[in-house]
């Protein structure tokens, strides 16, 4: 308990990032009927900078349905009886009825075993015709509202091509769940202000496929282990712009005032990544390495379009270089839509963002979108090029995308900025682990696939990759990732493929790492004490792992890199391998007693660390350690910051300087006239 309280105190210091989700906060307020607003006002303040860090389709469940109330069911990867090779869609819309009028032509082939029938996902369709092409033979089929079971008329063997044509009307707005309740967020395709009746709101259509919702607007095999190329003809009134995956091949004006845009993506990707957006957008164009990079925003944000998606070309270069794997797709577009059901979605070459990223230049001064732009871009390698084969392995998409934020911050703004971000991520993970319980990163027993979009798949996934990078070293880490991408490009993966890429690169077994971090729950808690022996000039470090040994591994095998800091500013690093629950390490051959020792000398461990330090030791840690996490930990325990104020105000990283400034304010505040103090407190100007 002590560890947790100390951790909370530490994060309170980082008050801008303490709350893990605004929905959690509001739920608490409404459900607990806290009608006094004074205390909670501070909480709302603290969420302001953090609220937009809810990325992708991250879900905050009000309770943990997945652990207790739902029986544990193993979630297998979908069986592939056939392989979808190519999808052609010809799409029109009935805005008033909110229907999709579609014609789909699907090319497929038996996966291995011969087949006589195929089952396609297609939810809430009216099916007008199913034909075998090219002979246009009417097919016998059964449709239960969710799947079309088509009798092929004969047996097809592996290698034989089958082409199916389906004429249909999709009714995503009329979708209901199993209880008959209207589905609001999983409709797959959304009409926004379809009749144009809402003032100041644009008419738009956009799609959101992840997890398995694109089957609500076209027939497909809607599983992440499938992938196919695509062509899409979208017919809309000529005033609208369209966007889809791949290249815009042609745009043809029709006699009836409509226009048909033809989009084509040659490289295969998973069905959940198919997308479409229709609206009156302003389109800003750039080029990167001969590839189009386009930004679509509402016309009122024309001036800020580039800045909203700031650094996109630079990020394309950065990630291509870092991974030594050039951006693999044929364009990169980003679009902002209204009422998006998620933060952003990494549809291949056509990323959709919620309107919260749409800001004016002035708003962007203090609230840029770097983190989310980096996140979605990284998915174009991890998620779109190499895709998790089932949502159980979602962290192979989201963990990397989250870690991309760290990598970008480190590259662009320095390690301290990246480490600040790492602490927010760690806070998010701990919040969930302690409030809702922990589950393995690779979670074969989830309750609902949507539950996988949580602070484990995202935050913990990224934090574990950071540890792996620290263990392997920079060069080996990125060489392994390069191998993983090359070996698995355009295919579906599970975590073993990542492990094997690392093992093949390093020539070293890494099961111990992957088993404990990916396949088991939780994180370690370390209680650490230091005893210096003047006679032997050695430091005895006693470490106990005190995490719950029933739910979590009783022993986390941990490579340790302790740092000893000396009065002259020097530092010595000491590596150990911890493989027991209680273990003592001796740091020998010390010339003099260190001012302070840091157990996690590289600030890379995902875990709780209890180190009892005196104020002097905390001051030494703040002054001598270069690690942002160490500095923050020390600052949380240094009550009187006047002794380090000059150092704080000289810090390179703004966040630390701001802490310095705030401590000056607090000190001076006490000397202000009482009338000023009261007023400033009431208004919240000085907090």
């Amino acid at each position, binding site marked *: 308990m002590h560890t947790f309280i100390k951790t909370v105190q530490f994060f309170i210091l980082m008050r801008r990032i303490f709350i893990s989700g*605004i929905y959690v906060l*509001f739920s608490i307020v*409404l*459900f607990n*009927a806290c*009608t006094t*607003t004074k205390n*909670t*006002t501070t909480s*709302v*303040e603290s*969420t*302001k900078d953090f*609220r937009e860090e809810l990325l992708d389709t991250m879900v905050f469940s009000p309770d943990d349905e997945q652990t207790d109330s739902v029986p544990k069911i193993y979630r297998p990867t979908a069986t592939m009886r056939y392989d979808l090779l190519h999808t052609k869609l010809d799409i029109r819309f009935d805005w008033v009825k909110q229907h999709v009028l579609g014609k789909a032509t699907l090319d497929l082939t038996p996966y291995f075993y011969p087949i006589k029938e195929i089952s396609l996902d297609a939810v809430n369709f009216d099916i007008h015709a199913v034909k075998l092409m090219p002979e246009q033979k009417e097919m016998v089929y059964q449709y239960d509202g969710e799947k079309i079971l088509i009798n092929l008329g004969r047996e097809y063997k592996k290698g034989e091509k089958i082409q199916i044509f389906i004429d249909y009307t999709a009714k995503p707005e009329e979708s209901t769940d199993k209880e008959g309740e209207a589905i609001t967020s999983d409709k797959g395709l959304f009409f926004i202000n379809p009749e144009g009746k809402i003032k100041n709101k644009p008419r738009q259509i956009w799609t959101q496929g992840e997890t398995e919702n694109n089957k609500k607007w076209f027939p497909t095999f809607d599983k992440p282990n499938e992938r196919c190329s695509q062509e899409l003809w979208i017919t809309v009134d000529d005033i609208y712009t369209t966007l889809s995956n791949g290249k815009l091949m042609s745009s043809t004006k029709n006699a009836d005032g409509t226009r048909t845009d033809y989009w084509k993506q040659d490289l295969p990707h998973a069905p959940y990544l198919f997308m479409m957006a229709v609206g009156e957008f302003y389109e800003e164009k750039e080029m990167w390495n001969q590839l189009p990079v386009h930004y679509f925003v509402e016309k009122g944000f024309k001036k800020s379009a580039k800045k909203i998606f700031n650094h996109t070309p630079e990020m394309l270069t950065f990630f291509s270089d870092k991974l030594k794997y050039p951006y693999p797709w044929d364009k990169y577009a980003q679009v902002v839509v209204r009422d998006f059901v998620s933060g952003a979605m990494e549809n291949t070459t056509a990323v959709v963002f919620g309107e919260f990223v749409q800001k*004016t230049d*002035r*708003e962007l*001064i*203090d*609230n840029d979108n770097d983190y989310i732009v980096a996140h979605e871009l990284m998915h174009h390698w991890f998620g779109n090029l190499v895709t998790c084969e089932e949502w159980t392995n979602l962290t192979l998409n989201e963990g990397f995308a989250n870690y991309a934020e760290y990598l970008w911050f480190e590259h662009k703004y320095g390690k301290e900025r990246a480490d600040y971000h790492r602490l927010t991520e760690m806070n998010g993970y701990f919040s969930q682990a302690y409030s809702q319980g922990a589950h393995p990163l690779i979670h074969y027993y989830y309750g609902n696939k949507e539950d996988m979009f949580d602070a484990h798949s995202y935050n913990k996934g990224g934090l574990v990759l950071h540890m792996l990078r620290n263990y392997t070293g920079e060069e080996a880490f990125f060489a392994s990732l390069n191998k993983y991408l090359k070996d698995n490009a355009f295919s579906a993966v599970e975590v073993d493929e990542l492990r094997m890429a690392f093992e093949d690169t390093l020539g070293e077994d890494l099961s111990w790492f992957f088993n404990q971090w990916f396949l088991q729950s939780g994180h370690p808690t370390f209680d650490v004490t230091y005893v210096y022996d003047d006679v032997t000039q050695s430091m005895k470090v006693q470490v106990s792992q005190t995490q719950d040994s029933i739910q979590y591994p009783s022993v986390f095998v941990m490579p340790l890199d302790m740092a000893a800091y000396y009065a002259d500013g020097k530092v010595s690093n000491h590596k150990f391998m911890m493989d027991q629950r209680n273990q003592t390490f001796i740091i020998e051959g010390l010339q003099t007693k260190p001012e302070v020792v840091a157990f996690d000398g590289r600030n890379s461990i995902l875990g709780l660390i209890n180190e009892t330090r005196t104020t002097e030791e905390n001051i030494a840690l703040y002054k001598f350690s270069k690690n942002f996490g160490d500095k923050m930990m020390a600052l949380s325990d240094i009550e009187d910051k006047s002794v380090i104020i000059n150092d704080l105000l000289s810090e390179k990283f*703004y966040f630390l*300087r*701001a802490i310095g*400034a*705030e401590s*000056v*304010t607090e000190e*001076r*505040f006490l*000397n*202000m006239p009482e009338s*000023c103090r009261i*007023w*400033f407190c009431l*208004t919240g*100007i*000085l907090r």
Partner: protein
Amino acid sequence: MRASALQVLLTNSEEEVLPLLKRVVEAEQAYPVLGLALEALSFYDIETAEKYAKRNIEDKSEYITNSLMTVFAATGKAEYLSYFHEKLQEVTLYQLFDFFEKYTAYVEMLPSQNWEEAVLVLSNMALDSGEDPYKKFFCVNALLKLKDSAKAKEGQPYMILAEDIKNKLKDIKNSETDPLLKMRYSEMDIE
């Protein structure tokens, strides 16, 4: 960072702070700095703060709204009630706490006839079945607060107001269909 630095400078004497604040509100682009300066200026020189706040009144950014509301509330002038009501329509979930705290404090400063307008707007929103439940909940809380404030004030108009708010709260409570809100309302002391 500059907002934190400005906070430090706010602890200086009025003679030092005032010229600085005037310079900041004249030219500052970053909302956190501008907002802090406007709010602080309203403490030292409300007229100047009001002048600069009005200059930004058309700025729709949520990043400055809160500071503008602080300044307008500090003027105690009823002419800004419509600004608050316009913002009430636009206020997002993230801003609800700040907004309602400022809004109720502002209304309490106004003459009783302005309260009537505020009570009508709040109760209409609370009765609107298509409105966001969080916003409705905050409207009801604000009405409760205004009712208690009216009760504590002297004079016939405030007594009538308190009774009117009580009746409106009963209507809201009786007509609400959302189970969660119904439960919350049942725990409230409307009398």
